[in-house]
């Protein structure tokens, strides 16, 4: 009974907050509200029995999304054109959105509610996968090629992010002069490493894994960029390139190795599967952390620190 009330309250909060994000006239306020909405959606995933997604939402939503959006804001003019006023003159947009919402709702309602999908097959072969958590087994064993391709996509994404923001290759962002933030980074670092390591380890038998751990390390990297004189990682540095490539290269190696002993791609030996998956996850953590970190190009210099003319 109380659980149902809780879910109802959550289901009320989320659309309400989404509406507030859309209706505020200022971009910076939308961003702040969007950060709050990330938290509520993590709660929603938790209530939907999807702790893995909840964990990703927590790590990416609090560690990166907020910082990335604030960075974008720092390069944007505060007042956007009056979007709300323009939308009022487009009734067909409202009709189209209503139709889309109706179709999505109909699709969700027409799904069989008690269809187990592939759950039974996954559980039946869990003992052979080398790990105890079904989500990790699917991601790194049964459908390892999906994950491998996703890592490749992440690498391409980083190249794209750097291509549209070449400025971050040349400039070192001015760190905050506040002594507090430097102290904060010093206190956070050991905790970040501890929790990231814990999440890689726990991925073997529960929600966790390389992506969540990488997102946490990247969050620490963002704090380092904003508070220390570290400077944005540069693509031209060989250390950065190796950090980006360690995970994918090791994963490809682990995927191809079975071919030499007459097995299929990614078909690990049952006895070694656990070790292989752990080593690949560890290497992927480094690469994913680097990829996510490199999405964040540092902040625009504060207005007082900028020179008279705007950088072109």
């Amino acid at each position: 009974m109380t659980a149902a009330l809780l879910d109802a309250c959550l289901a009320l909060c989320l659309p309400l907050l989404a509406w507030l994000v859309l209706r505020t006239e200022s971009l910076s306020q939308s961003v702040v509200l969007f950060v709050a909405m990330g938290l509520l959606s993590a709660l929603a995933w938790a209530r939907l029995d999807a702790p893995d997604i909840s964990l990703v939402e927590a790590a990416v939503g609090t560690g990166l999304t907020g910082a990335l959006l604030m960075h974008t804001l720092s390069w944007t003019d505060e007042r956007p054109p009056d979007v709300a006023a323009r939308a009022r003159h487009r009734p067909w947009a409202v009709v189209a959105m209503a139709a889309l919402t109706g179709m999505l709702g109909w699709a969700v309602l027409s799904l069989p509610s008690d269809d187990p999908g592939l759950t039974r097959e996954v559980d039946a072969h869990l003992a052979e996968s080398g790990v105890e958590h079904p989500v990790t087994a699917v991601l790194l064993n049964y459908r390892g090629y999906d994950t491998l391709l996703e890592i490749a996509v992440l690498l391409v994404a980083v190249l794209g992010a750097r291509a549209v923001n070449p400025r971050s290759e040349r400039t070192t962002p001015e760190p905050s002069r506040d002594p507090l933030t430097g102290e904060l980074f010093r206190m956070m670092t050991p905790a970040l490493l501890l929790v990231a390591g814990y999440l890689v380890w726990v991925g073997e038998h529960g929600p966790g894994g390389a992506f969540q751990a990488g997102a946490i390390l990247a969050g620490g990297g963002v704090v380092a960029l904003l508070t220390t004189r570290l400077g944005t990682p540069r693509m031209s540095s060989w250390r950065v390139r190796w950090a980006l490539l360690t995970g994918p290269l090791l994963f490809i190696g682990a995927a191809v190795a079975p071919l030499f002993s007459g097995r299929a791609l990614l078909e690990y030996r049952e006895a070694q599967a656990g070790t292989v998956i752990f080593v690949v996850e560890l290497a992927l953590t480094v690469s994913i952390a680097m990829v996510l970190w490199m999405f964040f190009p540092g902040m625009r210099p504060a207005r007082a620190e900028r020179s008279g003319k705007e950088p072109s």
Partner: protein
Amino acid sequence: MPELRMALAFFLLLNILAGLVRVVRGPTLTDRFIVAQLFGTTGVGVLVLLAADPGQAALRDVALVFALLAPVTVVAFVRFAVGSGPSPEQERR
């Protein structure tokens, strides 16, 4: 005891719902950011309460990650808010 925990989690969520009033009224960007931080801590409370139910222990890890990474957004916000300078028309009470 599980009922009490669920009831408290619901109560904390009602607090979040009430906090939306401050989000609407603002008036400044900092006020809204404070509400985002309030949601963060209250949400961590909800997560640890839910995690005490059998089979939900992973939610405690989610709470841990939220607690650990909360300062990232704050540092970015402060850097942005100070960097973009005072905006008198927005910050007047």
